[in-house]
């Protein structure tokens, strides 16, 4: 199988998966016992008001028609109207999304960084107290509720020591604007990603970059540490296997330094499993993001879901969860393709 046919097959296989996920979201919100409209009003409203409300949101149509509307709407990037203020949900979701993306990227960096470092250290000192301590760390990170770790870090570094901010994305008024580029013949283009770190670099404003990083610190360390356990274990096991191979012995015989052998030679063999694990952990990352964002008042999709639950805004909840579903399918597709590109054996 060539890479091209592999990609095509993989993309085709994603379609039923996405369709099933979307159907699940629809079924959970609309078909399971519990009517979103009645839940929204907590059964206290006038029946006529409820009917009007239903009509306004298109929830009075037969269920299969709603299902078609839902899927057709997605193709137009239309996620329906919010039950709270009847504004389009899509707009709110797209403005919250970059915050989640930024948190996810930095958390993944922390998780992989800590994971590789501790995993390598454990493998180097195999079966010593250091190795055992690192293994216990790996198990404990698995058992710590991410929001509890978040609260503890807020308490220690935010409130008791006062070093880092405990919530939000940046200091009020320090939101980076991105760059305005004037191209001859085209006009001025506003270049902004919504990621505060990148936008402040685009704007060329180091003060804003520092603020953005300071606010990112605690949330991404919290989420990153909780995810790091699995990378510690993966790196450790891979390194233990690799360090026993002949090419490592050969490198040692040539008198190379240990650091060169480990980071230059052995770690390369762990790259593919780590990449796969990053893809697999993406769903866990998103679950963790909901709790982390709630803990740190981080204005992303997770916090959006949390506040919308408070408003009993079921169309918004449905929209946000739909985005998560598509995101998960897309990431697993990208990881699989990347994997096939890097390791031709997969395509066989």
């Amino acid at each position, binding site marked *: 199988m060539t890479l091209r046919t592999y990609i095509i097959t993989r993309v085709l296989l994603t379609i*039923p*998966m996405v369709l*099933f*996920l979307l159907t*699940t*979201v629809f079924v*959970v*919100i609309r078909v*399971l*016992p*519990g009517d*979103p409209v009645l*839940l929204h009003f907590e059964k206290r409203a006038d029946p006529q008001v409820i009917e009007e409300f239903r009509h306004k949101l298109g929830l009075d149509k037969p269920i299969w028609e709603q299902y078609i509307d839902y899927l057709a709407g997605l193709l137009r990037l239309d996620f329906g109207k919010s039950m709270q203020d009847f504004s389009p949900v899509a707009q709110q979701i797209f403005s919250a999304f970059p915050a989640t993306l930024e948190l996810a990227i930095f958390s993944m960096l922390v998780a992989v960084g800590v994971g590789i470092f501790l995993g390598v250290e454990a493998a180097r000192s*195999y*079966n010593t107290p250091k190795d055992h301590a690192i293994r216990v760390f790996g*198990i*404990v990170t*698995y*058992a*710590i*509720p*991410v*929001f*509890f770790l978040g*609260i*503890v870090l*807020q*308490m220690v570094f*935010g*409130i*008791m020591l006062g070093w880092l901010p*405990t919530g939000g994305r940046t200091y009020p008024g320090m939101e980076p604007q991105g760059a305005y580029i004037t191209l001859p013949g085209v006009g001025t283009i506003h270049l902004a990603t919504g990621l505060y770190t990148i936008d402040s670099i685009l704007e060329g404003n180091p003060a804003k970059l520092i603020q953005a990083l300071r606010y990112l610190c605690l949330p991404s360390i919290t989420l990153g540490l909780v995810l790091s356990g699995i990378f510690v274990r993966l790196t*450790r*096991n891979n390194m*233990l296997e690799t360090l026993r191979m002949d090419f490592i012995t050969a490198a040692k015989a040539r008198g190379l330094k240990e650091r060169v052998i480990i980071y230059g030679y052995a770690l390369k063999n762990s790259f593919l499993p780590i990449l796969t694990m990053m893809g697999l952990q993406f*769903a*866990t990352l*998103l*679950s*963790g993001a*909901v*709790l982390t964002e*709630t*803990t740190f008042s981080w204005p992303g999709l997770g916090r959006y*879901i*949390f506040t919308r*639950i*408070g408003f009993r805004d*079921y169309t918004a*909840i*449905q929209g946000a*969860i739909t985005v*998560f*579903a598509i995101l*998960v*399918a897309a990431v*697993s597709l990208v990881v699989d393709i990347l994997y096939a590109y890097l390791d031709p054996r997969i395509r066989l």
Partner: protein
Amino acid sequence: MEETEKPKGILVWPIVKLASLTKKGWPGWTVLIGLIIVISIVIMTILAPYISPYDPNALNTGPIFGPPCPAHPFGTNHLGQDMFSRVLWGGSTMLQVALLSVLICFAVGVPIGLFSSYIGGNLDKVISLIMDSIYAFPGLILAIAIAVMLGRGVVNMALSIAVIYIPSYFRIVRSQVLTIKEMTYVEAARAIGAKKRTILARYILPNVIPSIVTVATINFADAVLTAAGLTFLGWGVEVDVPDWGWDLYYGRQYLPSRAWWIIFFPGLMIILLALGFTFIGEGLSEILNPRLREGE
């Protein structure tokens, strides 16, 4: 040696059995430590009504935000409730939800896995696709969606957690059955004309059980954390039921008061409970699958 000793009495037997775990080395110790943690927490929760110094919901048992002192070893919270009593009581919901969700997963995931993989064909493909999709989805987010639709309550919480873990059982059962059903003894059973049902129940299921037990213990740990997460997001059981998750939910709002004790002790209990189950799961999986033992 453990086979020749005939333990007397029903109380001695489990202790002898547990003590023999330590002969299995590090994984055995892990299981033992995990069991001790979990059993202590269960006993603590059961005995809470008899041993807790105050009613966990009683207001103003001491000063507001009182730090730990002899009268209130874990301090008091924003309502002057005794944190020590709340910690003693607070595991009940989590334990019930976790147990119930594991039972539901077991009752649904295992049979589906057995039949789907044994029958094979298109049905198996469709079920696998469905299970894989749920498996790929961020668990907590799906659980939130189901929980907000079903409403509060222990059973509803357990159901929403069960849905996200059923695929784990399905996958492990399916992969095991696919290997086992090709084995010669199953072929022999088929040759002497055993019914499908008999083959599944008597020849295949017993060999799948050990892997399921491992998944179930990990599932327990996950269920505890997910239940705590749902409660932390404000979607737990009623507010007047003392719960570690609720204590964290409220404690978070009073961080500037620097009252670390109102979050520290409930959080520690959640970690211990999840850690206990994780230890059991880790140890069991190493004992049951010695080939996977790390570094050997």
